[in-house]
């Protein structure tokens, strides 16, 4: 086959390029599930692509625990770090910005520009800290719905999310059945099992037992950095897999010198984790971390009767749930149960399992199988 002809058959993938964030200020009161009230709140978000005239080509992407609103593009020409799902979002990419208007917002209670524990409480003039209400997944979704109102969108053609974002996507379909055409939930769960709750508990314990925690009243620029870093290091392991780590580090050691102490880094994987922990401390707030892990732990679609399909009774969105074979944090079975319950409830749902070796974080990694699935699913939109 002639090369030139071959090339012309491939749709050209482009980049969303330089992006900037927006802030949406909702000046109405916001009631949390718990009954707490905020007088107003802000959500930081980014958008890619164009909203069409009929305003029906919008896709909302919900981020995971440590993610943010920056899921594609770069902030400047010198910016070497693209958004967290850059390979998935862009012109000609699976979430095609030539077709769709893509929105990604930082969650309520977050620490990357949306109102959260680090924001100033107008009543006191001080940061909220622990007086900020503890948000649930449902609260995060309710806040996003105000942003979608503000953007003048009645119905989203898809809500997409992995992990905690997958929980939000499902919650969208449950709470706003008239506003969600389809749901794409990846590496997620209808409720965490004990193992996932246990890991979150250890992460919180590391923060709460750091002497710098000071009941959340640490001075600006200080705080339980060690605790947060340890929490992140441990959580990061749960996002990977034995095989994935082996592939990446294969027990590589740093050069040993004869007077090396046991406190120094010996294996490459240690160095990697330490870097992950330190980088996290620079961008994440310990209280948000505690709050979001609590929101994850308390998320439970099984409800009072313990019957998952009851949660989906009003859902109208067609749904694709994607599990990853090597994910041991939210294992395939937990993903299967979501789709199976939807099918028992007579809904339109599918379950696909992608065989990737990177554990829970597989959904963030480029894979032709995953891209094809998402293309196929969105093609129906």
């Amino acid at each position, binding site marked *: 086959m002639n090369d030139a002809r071959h090339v012309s058959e491939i749709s050209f993938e482009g980049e969303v390029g330089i992006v900037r964030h927006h802030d949406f200020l909702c000046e109405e009161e916001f009631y949390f599930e718990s009954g707490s009230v905020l007088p107003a709140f802000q959500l930081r978000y980014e958008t890619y692509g164009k909203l069409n005239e009929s305003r029906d080509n919008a896709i909302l992407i919900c981020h995971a625990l440590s993610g943010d609103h920056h899921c594609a593009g770069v902030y400047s020409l010198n910016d070497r770090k693209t958004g967290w799902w850059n390979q998935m979002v862009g012109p000609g990419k699976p979430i095609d910005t030539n077709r769709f208007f893509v929105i990604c917002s930082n969650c309520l209670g977050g620490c990357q520009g949306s109102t959260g524990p680090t924001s100033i409480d107008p009543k006191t003039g001080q940061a909220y800290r622990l007086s900020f209400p503890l948000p649930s997944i449902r609260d995060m979704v309710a806040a996003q719905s105000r942003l979608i109102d503000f953007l003048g969108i009645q119905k989203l053609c898809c809500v997409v999310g992995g992990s905690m974002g997958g929980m939000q996507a499902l919650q969208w379909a449950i709470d706003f059945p008239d506003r969600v055409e389809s749901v794409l939930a990846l590496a997620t769960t209808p409720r965490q099992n004990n193992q996932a709750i246990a890991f979150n508990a250890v992460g919180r314990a590391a923060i709460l037992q750091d002497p710098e925690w000071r009941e959340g009243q640490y001075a600006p620029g200080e705080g339980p950095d060690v605790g947060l870093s340890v929490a992140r290091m441990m959580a990061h392991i749960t996002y990977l897999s034995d095989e994935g780590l082996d592939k990446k580090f294969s027990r590589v050691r740093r050069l040993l010198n004869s007077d090396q102490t046991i406190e120094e880094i010996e294996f490459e994987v240690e160095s990697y984790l330490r870097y992950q922990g330190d980088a996290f401390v620079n961008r994440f707030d310990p209280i948000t971390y505690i709050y979001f892990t609590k929101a994850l732990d308390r998320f439970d679609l099984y409800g009072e009767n313990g019957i998952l399909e009851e949660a989906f009774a009003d859902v109208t969105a067609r749904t694709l749930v994607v599990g990853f074979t090597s994910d041991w944090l939210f294992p395939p079975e937990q993903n299967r149960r979501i*789709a*199976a319950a939807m099918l028992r409830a007579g809904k339109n749902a*599918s379950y696909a399992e992608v*065989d990737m070796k990177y554990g829970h974080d597989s959904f963030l990694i480029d894979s032709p199988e995953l891209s094809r699935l998402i293309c196929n699913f969105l093609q129906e939109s």
Partner: protein
Amino acid sequence: MSENSSKSPFLRRTLKRRQIDFEIMVDWVEEDSRVLDLGCGRGILLRELVDRKKVYGVGVDSDLRKIASCVKRGVNAFQEDVSLALRRFKPNSFDYVILSRTLELIDEPGRVIQEALSVGSSVLVGAVNRGYWRNRISFLLHGKTKRNDVYPLWWEESPLSNHLSVGELHAFASRNGLEVRRLVYLKGDWNTVCRTLPNWRAGYAIFELASPG
């Protein structure tokens, strides 16, 4: 049903063959019914059933590529081994459970049929007749299984497979007290209906099985 019609001659012939047995199943299924297709492949049959009989359809297949095709067709598809997926549904959740060329590729097909008869009111089985005379003669003369359009792979490349014949299906039904509600035999071309000596002359059979009473 014209997927890849221009690409692979084998696929083209196969799909053409499959049109008749799919056609019979589409004909049998009532409008607005609920259908579970175990081993749904690329969702071609389910798509037809949704379009022409307005069924609520669910497909099950263990192969991601097949599931991806179902998703593209807008057909509900669940990726898992059929016997495990079957257990996720309550009794009488479906009007029909379809096992189209699936029995030969699964473990304990008898148990799967029995479980399918609890999840669905009736089970539609489509199966290649290994008792077809050409198969018999080939084995008699050469001592080898014939390699052809239906079984294109050498034995060493092919998955574990249950060989079954029309006669064996009937024997299974009577051993287990199952009612054969409807039945169509197709000749070796999988196209023309076969009326006599089916265990010799049929290349393919479509059964509707139901629990008695």
